[in-house]
């Protein structure tokens, strides 16, 4: 699965777990406004339903979402209006 941290990150710590396993732990995550992307990474996931837990301790935010691995090859995470927003897509996100 391609995981993109998109808008709204300002030097944040981010931790993402999929089915209880930590797949991403990063600090100082900052969105690049010229493209609307902070970080893009490929993560290994199993088939079936994925429980994705997103924690942004620097903003005291957390969010959990369940998706089907087969229909969600791309997951975009943004911080908007003080909340975590998720975008899923079958197409890979492109930035310009």
């Amino acid at each position, binding site marked *: 699965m391609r995981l*993109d941290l998109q*808008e709204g990150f300002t030097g944040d710590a981010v931790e993402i777990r999929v089915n209880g396993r930590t797949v991403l732990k990063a600090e100082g995550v900052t*969105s*690049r*406004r*010229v*493209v*609307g*992307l902070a970080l*893009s990474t490929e993560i290994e996931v199993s088939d079936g339903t994925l429980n994705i837990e997103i924690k942004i301790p620097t903003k005291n935010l957390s969010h959990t979402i369940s998706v089907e691995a087969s229909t969600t090859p791309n997951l975009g995470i943004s911080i908007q209006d003080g909340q975590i927003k998720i*975008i899923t*897509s079958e*197409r*890979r*996100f*492109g*930035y*310009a």
Partner: protein
Amino acid sequence: MAKRSTAATAPTSISGQYEGEMTAPTSGLTFLDLRIDVDKRYANSPVMKRVSGDFYQLNKISVPGSPPKVTRVYRESWIVHRPTMKTVGNKVEITGKVTFWKGTHPPNTLKITMATPQSGVTPSCLVTLTRPGGQAAVYNCTKKSDSFRSLNLEIDVCKSVNAPPMRPTWNTDGHPIKPAGLPARVLTIEEAYREAGVQVKIRPGSTVIDDSDAEFETWSDAELHNAMETYFSQIGGSWPKWEMWGILAGAYEEPSVGGIMFDAAATFGGAGKAPERQGFAVFRKHEWFDNLVDGTPANADQAASMRQFLYTWVHEAGHAFNFLHSWDKNRPDALSWMNYDWRYDNQNGANSFWSNFMFRFDDEELIHLRHGDRSAVIMGGDPWASGGHLEAPPGAEYLAAPPGAMASVEGEQPVELLIRSKEYFEFMEPVAIELRLRNLFSDMPITLDSRLHPEYGGIVIYIRRPDGRIVEYAPVMCKLAYTSPKQLQPLFPDEQPGSDRYSEEVLISYGRYGFYFDEPGEYYVRALYQGGGDLLIPSNVHRLRVGSPLTRQLDRTAQDYFSYEVGMNLYLDGSRSTHLEKGFDLLREMSEEHKDSLLGAKLAMTVANGLTQPFFQLEKTGEENVTVKLSQAYKAEPKEALKLTDAAVDVFQKTRQKALNLSYRQLVSQRVDSLVALDRQKQAVRELGDLEQHLRNLGANAPVLDQISNLASTISSTPPHEVQEYHRRHRLWDRVRTHDKLAAVAGEDRPRVAKKTPAKTSAKKSSKKPRKVAKKARKR
């Protein structure tokens, strides 16, 4: 009022770009670039119901026997929102309230009168801006274009992707997913922008950049910026200007990025090098463009690729015009070149973006592009995502430049205003810049006001701080004085530079609003010479860096250093006022503590200057009707001043930087004053000799060296009491602040034609160089 058209403008529309000179109250004083946007000017181009304009000052220099030399210097911009338009008979009248983008102005009203446009006749109009009370400025303007602005785009291509199509062409009918009623037409970069109201002219030719190094894979922002500085033929000369650079490159370091306007601040993810918004890149190896074809697409995948190619070019150029993404402007549902299709679809349903997108910018963007404040739109103007314009996100206003900061010359200027200093300053080191005026005419002298300190109002200095904010330097004092006219001669080919220029050093560390260089980082300094008001000359943009505190102790000292008392001591060149005693003592302490550094040397000069003169202050007397009395609080202490600056002489001798020549001369001048006061003329002559040798080794001009050696001769050959008396009344320290006055100290008026000596040969050669800034291409 109208004349026959020779240009291919839209035949019967009013809208477009007009220009013309002021006709009243002063003919030819200023120039107006006017944009009228009240009716349909071009197919598929919405009307924004706005009128806007840019004012330029006209510099006209009379030349005997020839037409006057004219240059335009941009001053400020304004807009009229939703003007009223009336047509009576064959006359059109447009009126509205003028809003200036920057600065404080009395409320102006606009009235434009013109004949109803006729096919084959170039429209012209009378533009009147009226202030409260009836004072009116009138301009006679003629239509120049059916676009509102015009710029050149230079496109270079990397060898790895040098295959057609290199530029996008898109038939709007070419993909099955499209809006109902979408007008069928062929769009290119030029056509998309022409519809938006900007005439984009693509420069002919394209440099192929060799990216075939086996170890090179992807581009970073820094590499893209470096490529722009290397290959963009227009990168030289002064910015801002209507020039843009695009590169078709292979792949970006982040593979999901298909294009980037890399020329933005590092905090926004750009290359972090001002001026910004000069260039962008499109990455041909991005998967978006896998199905590009040279010709007509044969299937939906190819069509989508072609469409995305056009989108990416127009989108990135849009960033260079200072556009943010649509969602960053709280318009996530905008059907605009500046939105992302997948972001729009996420909110509105699959394929909804391309099903509704009409291949245009949204209205707010069009208003910015056509009518926004010039510095917020023009390349190299306001930093990206800043400026007092319609596209700025909340909170970006503080980055807006003050009026005048973006003044730029169009055409050849008669006088050069150069700012220079050393490039690196230690933390807390006083920042002084040299301001130099130079006559650029090759055949006639020019007379200018030589008072270059902002205190006299003839020079305005702008400082861009590390956070991107541009502030105007405000001197602590404002001085009223007669003008000090100085005639600068043209530099003839057989002459030494000298009489064609005039310099003054100005300390800009501290001003009315405190310290200006109190944070480590990169600063840009620019000045605007206004002289007596008849000439406007912008300077170069001078970059300097302020270092970080080298020790924890120095960092702690900053708390006390950045204070009113220290700032005023720096501003006043050392003061023994009881009100500033704390600052004077701190500077003295620091100058001793850091005596082996430039910081210490410069602080020592400030303190020593305070010691070389007696200080008088007002004291309460207690007598009836006499409340205060002026009495000497401190005697001059030349011996102490010399002791304090002994180490500074060594520092300047060891620091072999040409940019410190003036500071070293000032130090020696100050010491000569003290040495003469102490009857130590021999040492004064010796120190002048050391200075002359030092400057000679660094390639100083012969006139400067002659001045120093003449001064030494004068001191040697004049009876000591006469020299002492002269220096007591006319301190060399004061006089050497302006370069040219040193000649007067030596009692010499330099002849216009320099002596022919071997040392002058190289200078003679350099004087033959073209005087205007070389704008030659670095390629081709």
